[in-house]
């Protein structure tokens, strides 16, 4: 297995085109693994990544293309799903060397967090945009608001999640927010984006690219790095989870939609929440992290205020070190693929906020969207 990233930039500030960034991340992952890029035989991505496998295969000199896969729907909810799809293809014998990738250059293309500029809208968008409900933060805020109301959870819980990301970013020179620590006072004083989300509860938007190389487990020791293994994964959602912007109609509104996934994940992996050493939980918004940690079984909703304290969430000593590279909030919003890479780094002992002898590493992708996805990586010791 290999992992690779470009430098990360603020949105719109990448000095190179998106396709070139994508190629650079894939080549970096090949270098990390010690393989010739011509030996890649499959591609998996998500969220309608604009860099399609045929073009990548030609550019990389791929000798034989055997797998070309896009995870449908869910935006960043597909990050772990792309890893899962690659793992499934490898297990089924469709391909032997798959790269999972994501590239974003938002100066070249559009931004996520802006409302539609169309003069007229129809369908589900027409039921929300005319009310000024038109960005991801606005769509997901009522989900977190209702969950916090139902379980008497205060703003301090969201603040602790944001603080953990910023804390870890201070040790990570790759992080956009490296050298820019966050204090509780600065969080509290920050402006609202849309209640209950302050500025620091919302992810960045960034430019860059990231890639992971996956191969069959029996080949994993042929490469330069200590291998990380996919122990289990799950993709999906529960009953009648509407896509945004009709998410308001989802019966189980106050959810990040991992209730049906987490039991399947743990069963496939043969481990439980108590075995997880470190978690990368996609912060589109901190409220999604809150619900996804509950739904993965780390604590009950009414324990959230006790559990979600900074000292519990930081490496090396916390009960559940969270977003140890700085995550989407403070390292980079590479649509969550940087979280998959950090999960692998933890198993290799290469994180800038290393959890001592981490063996089981969880990555949660895109809470509150549909479909969501989640993956457990393990070291050789837990096979």
């Amino acid at each position, binding site marked *: 297995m290999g992992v690779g990233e470009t430098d990360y930039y603020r949105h719109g500030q990448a000095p190179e085109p998106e396709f070139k960034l994508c190629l650079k991340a894939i080549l970096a992952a090949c270098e990390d693994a010690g393989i010739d890029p011509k030996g890649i035989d499959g591609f998996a991505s998500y969220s309608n990544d604009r860099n399609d496998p045929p073009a990548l295969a030609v550019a990389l000199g791929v000798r034989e293309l055997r797998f070309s896969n896009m995870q449908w729907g869910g935006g960043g909810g597909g990050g772990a799903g792309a890893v899962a799809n690659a793992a499934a293809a490898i297990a089924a014998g469709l391909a032997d060397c798959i790269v999972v990738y994501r590239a974003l250059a938002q100066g070249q293309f559009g931004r996520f967090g802006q409302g539609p500029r169309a003069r*007229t809208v*129809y369908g589900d968008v027409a039921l929300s945009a005319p009310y000024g409900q038109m960005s991801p933060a606005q769509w997901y805020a009522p989900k977190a608001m209702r969950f916090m109301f139902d379980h008497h959870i205060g703003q301090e819980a969201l603040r602790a999640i944001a603080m953990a990301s910023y804390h870890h970013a201070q040790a990570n020179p790759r992080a956009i927010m490296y050298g820019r620590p966050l204090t509780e006072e600065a969080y509290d004083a920050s402006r609202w984006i849309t209640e209950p989300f302050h500025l620091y509860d919302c992810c960045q938007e960034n430019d860059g690219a990231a890639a992971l190389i996956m191969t069959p487990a029996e080949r994993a020791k042929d490469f330069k790095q200590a291998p990380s293994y996919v122990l289990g994964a799950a993709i999906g959602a529960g009953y009648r989870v509407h896509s945004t912007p009709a998410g308001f109609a989802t019966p189980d509104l106050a959810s990040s939609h991992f209730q049906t996934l987490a039991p399947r994940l743990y069963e496939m992996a043969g481990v439980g929440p108590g075995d997880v050493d470190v978690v990368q939980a996609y912060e589109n918004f901190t409220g999604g992290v809150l619900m996804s940690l509950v739904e993965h079984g780390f604590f009950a909703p009414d324990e959230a205020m006790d559990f979600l304290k900074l000292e519990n969430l930081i490496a090396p000593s916390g009960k559940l070190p969270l977003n140890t590279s700085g995550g989407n909030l403070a390292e980079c919003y590479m649509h969550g693929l940087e979280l998959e890479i950090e999960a692998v780094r933890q198993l290799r002992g290469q994180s800038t906020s290393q959890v001592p002898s981490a063996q089981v590493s969880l990555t949660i992708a895109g809470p509150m969207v549909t479909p969501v996805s989640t993956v457990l990586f393990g070291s050789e010791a837990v096979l």
Partner: protein
Amino acid sequence: MSEAYLPDGLPIPVPEPNGLSAPYWEGLRREALMVQRNAKTGVYQFPPQWIAYDTQTFDVEWVEVEPKGVIYSWTRVWHPVHPALADACPYVVVVVELPQAGGVRMLGNLLGDPRQDVVIGAEVECVFEHHPDAAPPFTLAQWRRTAG
């Protein structure tokens, strides 16, 4: 129109070219709140869909429901993401549940002081906000706290 909660310039809602939600938008213009119902089971559904969510049959009918509900959740928006909203923040968006229609939910703005305390579970009534000068004209279902 001067009485609207949010400024002009936001996207104008229109029915899909295939007309799926036309009865909803036409209903609002005559101050009727319309939702779909499974003609066989009586189960309500919203947003509109060609098929019944409960039985996967296509005999879905439109019915008028009493224009009231309760606040299920909400957000108060402070950061504008559309040029028309540059000077309109804060504003309140509510998710309203209609118990008399099987608990279907709709979005809307909560009329009144945008800094008011918003109470989950509070009763609200629908206010039909007409935009007769828009092209094409349309009406939005808005919500306000029920007096008393």
